[in-house]
């Protein structure tokens, strides 16, 4: 390579800006909105069960499959494909469809209301009712088609899915005309115990790489890394805290507070322990190093009592990687996730 070639510019500022802007569609989903995420990142969402991990994935998927604009209404989505690999085998499509329908209707209604405020004098109430009635079925189906799903009942199935994923994604992208933007894995820890105790087929050869937790993790990382080179995606992975959060459950803590309301020193030690044991890593190091972002979720002690005299749990999210000092609180409602201030 000559020096001149080396000095030559690769791209102009304009080209770079265009590239960067397409590669970085800003993600504005409530618990994930603090950190700018771009394709190529691997985000791990850690939390006990239930802590709204799958819900975050579902909401992210909805923003991805929604179009930016449709029939003059601004939905603000990415209009890309989502690949959801379900290792927990607990995904419920009804939750996605219900939430997507609500999102479409709400967006449409609010945009209609803006129009009305411009041309005053219309009977607003009646119009709102009509908007709900003509729910956009075509848009809904188009969005649902952009959601791709596969479930795996064991590590073999997971690995064989990953091995053939690139080919499948290419096929799907061609069929839809848009690329896959999110790769979701729910949850990476599903086969932890099974792999830890697995014994491979005894064929009696020394050189053989045996299937274990370590080799499975290595292969998964290797395959995803290869995949990201060929097809840039944002990877969202959930992980359950298998070893407890080391503290008592939120219920337990609440009772404690009642018990020891006078004994504050005791409470403080309890909370300290709580912090220390909050997140215990158990995945192989090759996986840990692969993660670029990590967010920790838990159920908070508070509950939000609403009008129907039932209490909705409040979840707390905290960024561990990059570590941010503040925590966010959010709630899960029928329409999706909303922040608590």
């Amino acid at each position, binding site marked *: 390579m000559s020096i001149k070639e080396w000095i030559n510019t690769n791209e102009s500022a304009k080209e770079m800006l265009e590239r960067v802007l397409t590669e970085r569609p800003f993600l504005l989903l409530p618990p994930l909105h603090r950190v700018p995420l771009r394709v190529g990142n691997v985000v791990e969402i850690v939390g*006990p*069960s*239930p802590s709204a991990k799958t819900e975050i994935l579902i909401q992210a998927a909805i923003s991805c499959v929604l179009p930016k604009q449709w029939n003059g209404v601004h939905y603000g989505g990415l209009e890309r494909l989502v690949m959801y690999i379900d290792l927990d*085998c*607990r995904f*419920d*499509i*009804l*939750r*996605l469809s*219900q939430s997507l329908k609500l999102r479409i209707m709400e967006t449409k209604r609010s945009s209609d209301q803006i129009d009305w405020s411009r041309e005053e004098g219309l009977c607003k109430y009646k119009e709102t009712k009509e908007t709900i009635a003509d729910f956009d079925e075509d848009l809904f189906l188009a*969005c*649902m*088609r952009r*959601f*791709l*799903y*596969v479930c*795996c009942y*064991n590590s*073999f*199935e*997971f*690995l*064989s899915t990953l*091995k*053939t994923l690139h080919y499948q994604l290419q096929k799907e992208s061609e069929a839809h005309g848009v690329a896959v933007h999110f790769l979701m894995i729910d*949850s990476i*820890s*599903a086969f932890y*115990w*099974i792999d*830890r*105790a*697995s014994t*491979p*087929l005894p*064929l009696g*050869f020394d050189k*053989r*790489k045996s*299937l274990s937790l370590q*080799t499975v993790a290595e*292969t998964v990382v*290797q395959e995803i890394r290869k995949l990201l080179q060929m097809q840039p995606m944002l990877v969202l992975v959930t992980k*359950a805290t298998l*070893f*407890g959060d080391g*503290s*008592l*459950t939120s*219920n*337990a803590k609440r009772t404690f507070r009642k018990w020891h309301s006078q004994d504050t020193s005791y409470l403080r030690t309890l909370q300290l*322990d709580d912090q220390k*044991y909050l997140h215990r890593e158990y995945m192989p190091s090759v996986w840990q190093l692969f993660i670029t972002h990590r967010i920790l979720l838990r159920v908070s002690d508070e*509950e939000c009592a609403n009008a129907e005299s*039932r209490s*909705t*749990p409040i979840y707390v999210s905290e960024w561990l990687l990059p570590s941010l000092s503040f925590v966010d609180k959010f709630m899960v409602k*029928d329409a999706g996730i909303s922040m608590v201030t």
Partner: protein
Amino acid sequence: MAPLKSLQREFPIIDCNFQQFCASHGIYSVEDFLVHDLYSLVASAEQQSSSEELREGISQVISIIGSQHQPWSNGVELLGDAQKNKHVLPTGCEGIDMLLQGGLRVGHVTELVGPSPSGKTQVCLQAASNVAVKFMGVVMFLDTCNSFSPRRMACFINQHFNTPVEEVTQKGLKRVMSSILCQSVFDIFSLLDVLRQLELKLQFQVNTGDCKLRLLIIDSISSLITPILGGNGAHGHSLMIFTGFLLKKLAHEYNISVLDAPPPSAEDFLVFFRKRLRALAPAPATLLPFGSDHHPTTAPVTNHMVCGEGGILKPALGESWKSIPHVRLLLSHDRRSNSYNISILKHPVMVSGRAASFTVYG
């Protein structure tokens, strides 16, 4: 997964030469292919003299791998399957059915959690009788602690037949009782054995087109799993999670295969079991070291004792089990009004925290 040797008959391209090449890379079975970097394998195949055949062999194995995983589907297909096959089965307890918007969803693994007298078995029996009478379905009851009572079952069933004619009632009762299959299992291995046999049978029945099993009840699963947990090894947990996945697969899979083939008969299936709550000593005792996130088997069922004083009840089987069931319901019993309370701990569609109460008659 199959050793390469055994594939030779079916796929002639996987011949001796190919097997030798694979063996030089430490690959002896399809399983080994999964943990191997196929790109580097292809690259090294290029350098061999018979590169063309080797590459063909590799792509043959990849297509075998491709057939190993579950089929892909998109949101529209999933929704279609859910609307067509994943109905709800009413349990017959009004409070529960109202709370769950109709009842237990087919394809879900539903878990009932509660302290010892909190109506878990009663709900199981009631659901079994309701499904057997109203849906003409077969119910399988796997009994791990001798809690199945045919007399109580007959009692529930008789409530459905409100005819004064003794003969009609007797006939109906006989029919319904014969569609409720009860089997005692006393350890995890016989449970796995039963589930495996069930899977084979269902596979066969889906092919032949008569499958009537609608409800599988395991009462209670924790008494099988708790004894194998503990110690330093991962085998207890491994068996527990394995059982969980087998249940999820049984519950879900038989709808998917119906979707692929023309649907033989409305074939619904649901796993349903209950679990015991165990008392948990408060405070530092829970900060147990690695691998013992569950409580020792010897912990007595002291729930009623600690309850009043603010002791903490925690579902058995620990943190890892939580990722298994789709729905977790917490049951409790109010002695004074003789009513049962139920609340949602986890549900894929509904917001957790909702509660209702119901009564068990008879």
